[in-house]
């Protein structure tokens, strides 16, 4: 049984506005690789991998850690086919492949995206 794992999703980036100028406004396809459960037994973070790597501000972007962008948003709604507002933090590949990719204690600024994520219909 799978829940969010391996789910294909579509990402529509809202902010930063410049992302649309540099990368384009077409929604991006990604796959949820992992998710982490919180104290209230809801998914609190997801690890996403873009199906196609993109370049933004000279950074190769493929892996992101996603969290709800607003308190009313819940990541499990992705599995219910709903659109979820998410905040994405770009992480390098070695972090994504580490035992705890959700650990962002090392993050001191970089690429962050505000976006809408919804399950991709295939």
């Amino acid at each position: 049984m799978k829940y969010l794992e391996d789910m294909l999703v579509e990402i529509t980036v809202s902010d930063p506005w410049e992302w649309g100028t540099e990368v384009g406004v077409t929604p991006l396809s990604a796959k949820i690789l992992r998710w982490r459960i919180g104290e209230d037994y809801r998914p609190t973070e997801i690890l996403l991998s873009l199906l196609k790597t993109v370049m933004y501000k000279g950074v190769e972007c493929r892996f992101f850690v996603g969290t709800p962008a607003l308190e009313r948003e819940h990541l499990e709604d992705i599995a219910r086919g709903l659109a979820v507002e998410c905040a994405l933090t770009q992480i390098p590949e070695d972090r994504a492949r580490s035992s705890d990719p959700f650990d962002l204690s090392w993050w001191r600024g970089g690429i962050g995206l505000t976006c809408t994520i919804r399950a991709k219909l295939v």
Partner: protein
Amino acid sequence: MIQIKHTADITAQTPTWTEVVRYFYDGLNQRVKKELTSPPDTIYLYDGWQCIEEREADGDLLRQYVYGAHYLDELVAKRESGGSLTFYLQDSNYNVVALAEDDGDVIERYCYEPYGTVTFAEEDGDERAAENALNKVLLFQGQRRDPETGLYYFKNRYYSAELGRFLQRDPAEYKDGMDLYLAMLSNPLSGSDELGLGGDQPGVWEILKQLPGALVEEVPKTVVGGTSVWLQRQVQTVRAVQKVQDAAEKMVPKSPPTKLATFAPLSEIPTHVPAKFTYEDVQGLAYPATGGLSGLLDTAVNYGYGNRSLNELSNESVATGIQLGLTSLAMRLAKLAVARLRPAPGKVAGDAQGSEVVQRWMSKDELRATQETGLLRGGRQGTHYVTDAASKDPLRARQRLALDRIPEVRVKMEVPGGKFSSPTKVPTKYKMPGGGTERTATGNVPVRIIEVDEP
């Protein structure tokens, strides 16, 4: 078929290989035969994934196994072809810790390192040489160990206790993480992996015990392993619906007392749920992944063993599974009832007539696009975020709105009324504390810029 060979000197130019053993598998990945260079060969007969008999190649019985009802690898006894019985004693993680005769006397003991390296001992605890052990096979987590290789057969793949890793990639792939060779999620003391398809999530058992209702106390070890993700989903549903139910209780008179939290069957859905449901409601809500009431059956099967057919399950586990499914259904119906009572969260707030003033911190490029098009964010697709009152200080705004960068200009705009959602709190993100509120809208939003504040 897998052949395992051994050489005394692998550095030799032409090493001499000696065949040790051959394994044969059926289409279900079950090991059905083991051929040793010195007979007898062994044929394995299964009930589901439980090996119940071993026979020689000519069909003569070697031994039979008896299992308990609560777990796939819950060993009870072994009966040799001569009739002698031995009993397996297992600890809470189903490690075989001792072997007893039919009169109850312990005849051998086993000690394990965390990842399963075994030490054999006499009944009084003195160490016993491995070659003299009475039971060299069923040991760590009740799994089958091959004495000729020292590897454990975890049904779908082999495990090395010395390495603490599986030797093949996880057939379930990234279900448990990025490390495809990881065993028991690096938690072998309390984790188990009866099928070799990824360890159970640590703490699931503890989560279940925290749930209300006596049913949880009866959930057997079967729930971990292959079905743990499903269970987590159930737990999340229960938790989520309980929250909705709490909200509902504030909205409707509390009579009679709700029984949802104690796993009420469908017939006992509280009468205060103020909605009528159609067959389609039930069909869609019962179990969205498989659809409709057939999900209940699926639930029942999952509650037993994820890969066993229904007729192999005990009546008790089927009944409990159906009750779980019905409980899930009841809770989903309650959630639907509540959803019908109140407006969807985050949707249009306020008067749809007239206009209102909102603020947004943005970049200069975005401001330019907004001015040129007369549309918020230059008419780009995606969600528009605004706030009723943004701090004048960009650093403070970055903290309150949890922005990943320092914004450039604060713009006060007039937008059509009723376009934006009611304010919702911004959580901590990008290492910013958040705590401010934001409102959202989608689609083209015409704006009239009132004021631009560039710090």
